[in-house]
């Protein structure tokens, strides 16, 4: 009886107040889309970090014949120098940080560069212009600096490069994007709370007659307030579902179809990740509505 009564009241309230309810739906929709986008961006960052840090190497570029670097003034790296460097990596103080070392000859380096170059600029070069490279895989990528310090000063080494630096720029960008999305989400959520508050208030005012009678005949406070709380919650949850739908479409068509097709070397987030975020979005929607109810109802339907 009570459940049917409450649901009936909720339905009546939403119908009578349909424009307000719709605005609550739309505002929560937009705000939760931002929240979801921020969360998905962070998941993407984490996914990339996990995937790339495992593959990332420290590259120790060895001196080519005609290097412009000061430390290569004595000419190209010699076989003895290469052996010394290798010894430091495999037997020296940093040996325990090093997982594997590959040696790339200057011909291989040249082939790789030309293969990954679309512009054709590098094909003007010659293998002899380049130096060989030690690709070092670290057991702990965070320890890059230690390995770099141990090898950078050695004779025959032109430059030590941490590939993480390249990715870190991308991560910085993605993190900034997350902050922007989260900031917008916060503003929109504030708007959502205020709007839900107004909706509940209007709804309570328009049903003052009913609530007065309910109070009079001894209806419990929770039963008096429940329809209003649920009204806000229903509208906000509808917004959350729209946001989930929007994110799903984004993941499906923007990421899985378009991005994956155009930039293939990245492991993207997908629709599965949207489902991971979805329950949180619903929880946030319900939370927003609850918060709004809390600030409003005490004043408008006192027992």
């Amino acid at each position: 009886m009570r459940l049917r009564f409450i649901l009936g009241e909720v339905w009546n309230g939403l119908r009578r107040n349909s424009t307000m309810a719709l605005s609550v739906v739309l505002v929560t929709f937009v705000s939760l889309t931002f929240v979801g986008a921020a969360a998905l961006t962070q998941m993407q960052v984490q996914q990339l970090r996990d995937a790339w840090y495992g593959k990332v190497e420290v590259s120790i570029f060895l001196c080519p014949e005609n290097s412009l670097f000061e430390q290569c003034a004595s000419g190209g790296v010699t076989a003895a120098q290469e052996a010394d460097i290798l010894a430091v990596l495999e037997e020296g103080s940093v040996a325990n940080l090093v997982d594997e070392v590959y040696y790339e000859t200057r011909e291989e380096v040249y082939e790789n560069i030309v293969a990954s170059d679309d512009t054709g600029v590098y094909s003007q070069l010659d293998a002899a212009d380049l130096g060989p490279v030690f690709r070092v895989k670290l057991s702990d990528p965070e320890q890059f600096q230690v390995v770099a310090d141990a090898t950078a000063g050695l004779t025959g080494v032109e430059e030590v490069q941490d590939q993480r630096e390249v990715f870190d720029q991308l991560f910085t960008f993605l993190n900034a994007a997350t902050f922007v999305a989260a900031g917008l989400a916060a503003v929109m959520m504030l708007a959502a709370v205020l709007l839900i508050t107004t909706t509940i208030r209007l709804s309570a005012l328009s049903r003052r007659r009913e609530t007065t009678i309910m109070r009079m005949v001894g209806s419990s406070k929770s039963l008096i307030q429940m329809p209003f709380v649920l009204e806000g919650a229903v509208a906000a949850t509808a917004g959350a579902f729209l946001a989930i739908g929007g994110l799903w479409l984004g993941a499906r068509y923007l990421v899985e179809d378009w991005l994956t097709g155009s930039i293939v070397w990245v492991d993207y987030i997908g629709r599965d990740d949207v489902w991971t975020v979805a329950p949180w979005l619903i929880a946030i929607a319900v939370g927003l509505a609850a918060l709004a109810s809390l600030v409003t109802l005490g004043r408008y339907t006192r027992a």
Partner: protein
Amino acid sequence: MIRLDNVSKVYTRGARPALDNVSVEIERGDFVFLVGSSGSGKSTFLKLILREERPTVGDVYVAGRHLNRLSSWRVPHLRREIGAVFQDFRLLPNKTVYQNVAFALQVIGKSRREIEQNVPEMLELVGLAGKERRLPHELSGGEQQRVAVARAFVNRPPILLCDEPTGNLDPGTSVGIMRLLDRINRTGTTVLMATHDDEIVDQMRKRVIELKGGHLVRDQDRGVYGLETV
């Protein structure tokens, strides 16, 4: 059933008290008129009993409860023991007669079976059988007040509070309402009625409690409206 012990109520500090040191006891099954001019403290008296207000000083007991100590979440239980009828009927305009009365039971969680049994019985008692499907605006004032009485009494509360129930009705209709209240009183229900209607008070010859400027000035069995006018 209802007891006020040295009750005073001051709304704003420094202002004249709405009730000043009032002590009254109303027994189970009593029929009591509460009379006095506007501002005499009648409304405050009723609000204290309904626990819409708390006394500034003194103790209020209703239906075995000490209202000073009643926590706010218990207030609904108190109100289920008090039916209330008002001058302006307070019916829901978009609900039928039946729905208006059933509403009072729905919102305190009664089962559908109880509602289907009690509401027709109550409409029969107040003389509205056959008008279940009417909307309030299709009824006369007297009939609307009967709906309000039915709604107040459908849960069979031991106490019925009436605030000027005949204030909007013509004398003939008022007599009908008073007969109804009298009949309800005979079932053992305590009836407390605030009124300005001297004819009714004089006709009924029930106990009269008179307030004046917040003071209890008269408590008389089988009394009339105003001593001075008699």
